[in-house]
């Protein structure tokens, strides 16, 4: 039993943390987050050079990490810095899918993703799918030369900027069936792909992607035809872990900012942190954050386990993070009072990110139900 990270991971976390605090201060972040592009290509390159993207992939893929705790360490630091660059969409989800299911030619795409020169994204969610992985209505029909894709994909992270789309489409069966879903690698410039980008409320951008008779070659199929759900579940699972860790980093930052505020802000002549009612709420918040930290550790540790163990730990973590993240966001704003509502205070942006994480890859209710479906077990 050992709750220390390995030296390599600690060094990575330290250098990433240092880079963020030096190069990714709030004003820079704010500018990037609301920019037309939604991320900084320059900083993205620097993150790549630091090895941060590589840490999300295994050695086989040309990375030097890729395990649960690598994901956790990186995303916790990204959460602390409110980083909006496309780590989740390009590296964890799209890159993860290619790494998990790609043939040799497809795996070759990872080099560009890892060195930051290529932005990919994962176009899986659809306007009516909510958080259900098997609610795929987008269709791919086989043609003599390959496939033709038709359908709509929703809230695709950095979908406007990505050059490569990993798209899920149904090659057989009906919406909601577990079988019959396939993945395709689609160049963003392919005829019939239209993208409508927009800002997210918590910074960065996403896009609605529409596929109208998009013809791709036979080599676009990623993994086995009709068998993609297992890959999607695995990749989304890694994404869930990443979001949980990111949330934890953001919670820590929000909590510390609030503590500092309680210590220094005076009202009625005394620091407001001397009011017992607020003290007890902070104590409860601390406790919740520590429980959330444990949930992230449990999930990271379960990534190598069997499906049921892994998915149950992931749903437990995402449920916990969803609940606690929203609580921390709301309490930190409330404890700050009016100033906590203002754009100029970093806290407000932490709060927005914390709440929005509950809307990515499944919210509290979704994951509580999923946890139960995988079977209650002490």
């Amino acid at each position, binding site marked *: 039993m050992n709750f220390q990270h390995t030296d390599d991971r600690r060094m990575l976390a330290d250098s990433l943390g240092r880079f963020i605090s030096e190069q990714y201060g709030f004003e820079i972040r704010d500018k990037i987050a609301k920019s037309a592009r939604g991320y900084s290509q320059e900083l993205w390159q620097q993150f790549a050079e630091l090895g941060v993207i590589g840490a999300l992939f295994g050695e086989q893929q040309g990375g030097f990490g890729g395990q649960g705790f690598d994901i956790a360490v990186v995303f916790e630091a990204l959460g602390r810095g409110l980083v909006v660059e496309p780590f989740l969409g390009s590296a964890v989800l799209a890159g993860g899918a290619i790494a998990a299911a790609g043939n040799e030619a497809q795996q070759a795409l990872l080099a560009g993703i890892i060195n930051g020169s290529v932005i990919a994204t994962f176009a899986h*969610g659809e*306007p*009516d799918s*909510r*958080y*259900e992985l098997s*609610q795929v209505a987008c269709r791919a029909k086989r043609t003599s030369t390959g496939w033709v894709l038709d359908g709509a994909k*929703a*809230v695709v992270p950095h979908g406007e900027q990505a050059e490569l789309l990993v798209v899920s489409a149904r090659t057989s069966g009906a*919406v*909601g069936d577990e079988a019959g879903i396939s993945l395709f690698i689609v160049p963003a410039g392919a005829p019939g792909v239209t993208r*409508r980008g*927009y*800002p*997210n*409320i*918590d910074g960065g951008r*996403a896009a*609605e992607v529409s596929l109208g008779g998009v013809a791709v070659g036979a080599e676009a199929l990623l993994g086995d035809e009709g068998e993609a759900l297992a890959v999607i579940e695995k990749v989304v699972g890694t994404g869930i872990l990443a979001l949980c860790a990111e949330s934890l980093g953001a919670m820590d930052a929000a909590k510390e900012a609030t503590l500092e505020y309680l210590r220094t*802000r*005076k*009202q*009625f002549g005394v620091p407001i942190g001397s*009011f017992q*009612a*607020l003290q007890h709420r902070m104590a409860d918040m601390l406790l919740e954050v520590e429980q959330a930290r444990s949930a992230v550790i449990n999930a990271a540790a379960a990534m190598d386990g069997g499906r049921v163990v892994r998915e149950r730990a992931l749903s437990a973590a995402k449920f916990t993070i969803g609940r606690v993240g*929203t609580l921390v966001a*709301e309490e930190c*704003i*409330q404890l700050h*009072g*009016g100033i*906590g*509502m*203002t*754009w*100029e205070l970093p806290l*407000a*942006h932490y*709060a*927005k990110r914390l*709440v*929005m994480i*509950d*809307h*990515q890859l499944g*919210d509290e*209710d979704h994951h*509580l*139900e999923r946890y139960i479906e995988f079977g209650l077990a002490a």
Partner: protein
Amino acid sequence: MDLNFTPEEEAFRSEVRAFLADKLPKRLSDKVRAGKHLGKADMEEWHAILNSRGWLASHWPGQWGGPGWKAAQKFIFDHECALAHAPRIVPFGVNMLGPVLIKYGNEAQKRHWLPRILDGSDWWCQGYSEPGAGSDLAAVKTTAVRAGDHYVVNGQKTWTTLGQHANMIFCLVRTNKEAKKQEGISFLLVDMNSPGVEVRPIITLDGEHEVNEVFFTDVRVPVENLVGEENKGWTCAKFLLTYERTNIAGVGFSIAALERLKQVATKLQRRGRPLIEDPAFAARIARVEIELKNMKTTNLRVIAAVAGGGVPGAESSMLKIRGTQIRQEISSLYRRAMGPYAQPFVAEALQEGFDAQPIGPADAASASAQYFNNRKLSIFGGSNEVQRNIISKMILGL
């Protein structure tokens, strides 16, 4: 014990409904329903419509142009307006300054300012909060020094809602630095076009410009703009803070918002069936609906007590706390209902005239922004923590 309104009150309700059906412009109610932003002209338009019916200043006595309503009528009016998605009345002139002037103003002040509130000649904003004071309103640092027939005002106010539209501001200012905290404060009316007044926007976390900072640098204010006695302004301030809080629970707003939530949850799907049929989501809606039904009766009980000669006092703190919790919970569920579409935020979609295809469901555009904006409900107007202190002291005697 009778929870029904009297036949007279029900007749009044019908009258209000007929008025709203007839006079509330659909353009305005559509904007309110969809959570879009109202411009200055929108608000002025609605004020003028109400004023032409004599219903703008529902808290004022008839002599000054109020309709002379009882508490139950005010409740019914506010309620029906909310259900009809009418714009809110901008409260600073009508509901705040008006009653203060009527109670503490001199004859000249009443004659000059009150009609101008009604006809929209003046747009008032509130100069209470200061940076660093927060819930401690008596910690006023803005000074007004008497110089002949003027005061010279220096200092800063903050959280000034809709101050960007205002031409007048009522302020708490310190006229005696020697006196103890709450003594030495005066209540002063300041023309915002005076030299030395500067308004700077505060952008809130949802990207909105709703509140402002107001800076005063050697601003000269005629002494006739002092309301009440010099150094007795805290009396006006307290009166304003406790006056007419029977609508503080916002039950009508919550009912309208809950209706909108249920409509959306009927349209949106989860696992192939309407979200409202999902047991977990239905339970969340049911919980807040039950809480709201209880709140409505709690609110009416307070109104009945007031009508019976009781004083709302600290009871309004209960209404404030639970009323804002309910409103926040409904907007939280609304955001939750949107699923992944809570994240996109196209600010222009909340402006009039936006006619592009919405991102995701049509109702998603304002969901998260409203949720975040509504965090203010438990902070402004006396934070819910301050309200708990009041309950503890006034009702519980702790």
